[in-house]
């Protein structure tokens, strides 16, 4: 038996292909939306992987440093290093800001203050070297667009890009720029000169800090205002073979700090931080699925209405209802298949252009294909219903 659907598609392939391309763009958007969600999850995992930490020590009662602000004194790391089971611990700061390139363009990045050679440092470089000097050097993610040797401005100082790394992004997808911890602390916490002068005047005017009988008090208070010894978190690497929870518990108990294991941090980043965005994307996916189904149903329905006479003739000459239903179903599936292929190609082509990472997974493509088939099959029922109701007598008139 010849394939009636195949012949019809071959006969009016231009209409099918154009309709399929239109549908494909919609499917492409759907796949991209799924890719945006996958990219957000992957960014979160990349953030955790790149920190090379087993534990995150943060301010008590916070879920920092990525989901909430967290502030610790930078000397806390010493007591953490002294706890049993800890191989390495390092202070780290994170803050998002606009960094000015040599060309004058602003780029939104996450500036990470790290201690050289300790957890938090980029795991690998594409070019250049790690930070070696105490000040004014930076290692940047390639997505910043900065070139090796380029001078970039962070707050009041210029930094030279000495290394380039890759897939170092914040949970929000901003590329990272790594600088020395001291530089980062200054950039994050130090005020500008005018603010410092104003603060000094304000402090001097406060009789509590400017007592005639207490020499040196005012200077001490002013000095404390202009120096920063805060960090956002301490990244901890454990000695081999230890259970992270067993090491974390004494830190929580004796140091009065919040400690997250990798599983806990993953929970915060994936399940909490991007939960709302994920729901948003899910809603979009549902709407796109409904719109796709409506479009396929409308197209197949219209195409079937255009073939009422042929269907009547087919029924009159003894074609089974099953054959006619199969023809319409196959056309719907054919349309879906063309649309899916077009959508997959479109999503693959435009995904790299997106500012945030779009991760197109094969499993999502397979799910998308199955969903497309299901939607097309469902959408064809309306047209099949119409076709089965066609009276063979319509062929006679």
């Amino acid at each position, binding site marked *: 038996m010849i394939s*009636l659907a195949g012949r019809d598609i071959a006969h009016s392939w231009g209409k099918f292909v154009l309709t399929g391309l239109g549908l494909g763009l919609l499917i492409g958007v759907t796949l991209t939306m799924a890719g945006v969600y996958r990219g957000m999850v992957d960014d979160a995992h990349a953030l955790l992987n790149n920190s090379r930490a087993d534990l995150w020590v943060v301010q008590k009662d916070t879920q920092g440093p990525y989901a909430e602000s967290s502030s610790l004194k930078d000397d806390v790391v010493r007591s953490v290093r002294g706890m049993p089971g800890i191989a390495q611990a390092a202070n780290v700061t994170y803050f998002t800001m606009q960094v000015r390139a040599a060309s004058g363009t602003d780029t939104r990045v996450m500036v990470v203050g790290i201690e050289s050679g300790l957890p938090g440092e980029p795991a690998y470089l594409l070019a250049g070297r790690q930070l070696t000097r105490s000040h004014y050097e930076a290692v940047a993610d390639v997505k910043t667009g900065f070139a090796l040797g380029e001078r970039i401005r962070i707050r009041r100082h210029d930094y030279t890009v000495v290394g380039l790394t890759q897939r170092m992004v914040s949970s929000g997808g901003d590329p990272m720029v790594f600088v020395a911890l001291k530089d980062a602390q200054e950039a994050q916490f130090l005020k500008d000169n005018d603010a410092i002068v104003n603060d000094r005047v304000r402090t001097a005017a406060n009789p509590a800090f400017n007592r005639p009988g207490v020499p040196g008090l005012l200077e001490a208070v002013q000095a404390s205002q202009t120096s920063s010894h805060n960090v956002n978190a301490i990244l901890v690497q454990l000695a081999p073979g230890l259970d992270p929870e067993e090491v974390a518990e004494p830190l929580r108990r004796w140091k009065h700090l919040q400690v997250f294991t990798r599983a806990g941090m993953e929970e915060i980043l994936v399940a909490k931080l991007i939960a709302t965005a994920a729901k948003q994307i899910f809603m979009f996916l549902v709407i796109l699925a409904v719109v796709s189904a409506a479009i396929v149903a409308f197209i197949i329905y219209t195409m079937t209405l255009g073939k009422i006479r042929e269907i009547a003739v087919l029924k009159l000459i*003894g074609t089974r209802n099953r054959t006619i239903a199969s023809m319409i179903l196959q056309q719907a599936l054919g349309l879906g298949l063309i649309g899916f292929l077009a959508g997959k190609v479109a999503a693959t082509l435009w995904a790299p252009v997106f500012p945030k990472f779009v991760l197109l997974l094969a499993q999502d493509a397979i799910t998308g294909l199955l969903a497309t088939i299901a939607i097309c099959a469902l959408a064809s029922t309306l047209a099949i219903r119409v076709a089965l109701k066609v009276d063979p*007598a319509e062929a006679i008139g």
Partner: protein
Amino acid sequence: MSTHLLPAPPRGGILIEGLRKVYGHGDTAVEALKNVNMQVSPGEVVGLVGPSGSGKSTLLKCLGAIIEPTSGRMQLGSDVIYDDGWTVRDLRALRRDRIGFVFQAPYLIPFLNVIDNVALLPMLAGQPNAQARERALDLLTALDVAHRAHAQPSRLSGGEQQRVSIARALANRPPVILADEPTAPLDSERALAVVRILNRMAHQAQTAIIVVTHDEKIIPTFKRIYHIRDGQTHEEAGQGLSVE
């Protein structure tokens, strides 16, 4: 409907006695066919002529196993149609295997080429594709349109399309062909050519053919003509057409 008392029609022919069809019920009932009697033998082409609203289409639908008559007897070969036990599936098989249809417009399936339009019926009847196409090609050759076998229907002239539709009607070797105004869109020459083809096919395949028409050009070509008016038929002799 009863099957006894009535004589069996000739093998493959069609016999209609006292056929009645009423649409609707009660006060709104319309009696489209009142008392239709017809007999068409194998190899015979008869005309069915009548004005609009006379019941031609209703009769054609009854003959074509599309609508069920209210009463009367309709016999195709040895089978009494619409007798007890005829299911939708049986009627569909009857239309596919034992009745050929030729329409006013050819109504070829536009997305199938000529040979597949003809081969579709044998294929639907379960014949292998190659065998169905072979049969289709034979018919197209007999009807002198084999050279257009692989063309799309839209590329054919009106006369060629009608010949293809005749080939399609003959594809399953049906004992009966119902032709509904087959010459309406054609000029005199082509209309007569179609009638000649129908006569030739009826003669060669021993098919009983009923041609519904009000085309004055072809009415005299039938040996027997059934006139239908107000749902009733009466028969008269025509001039006939030489098959040669």
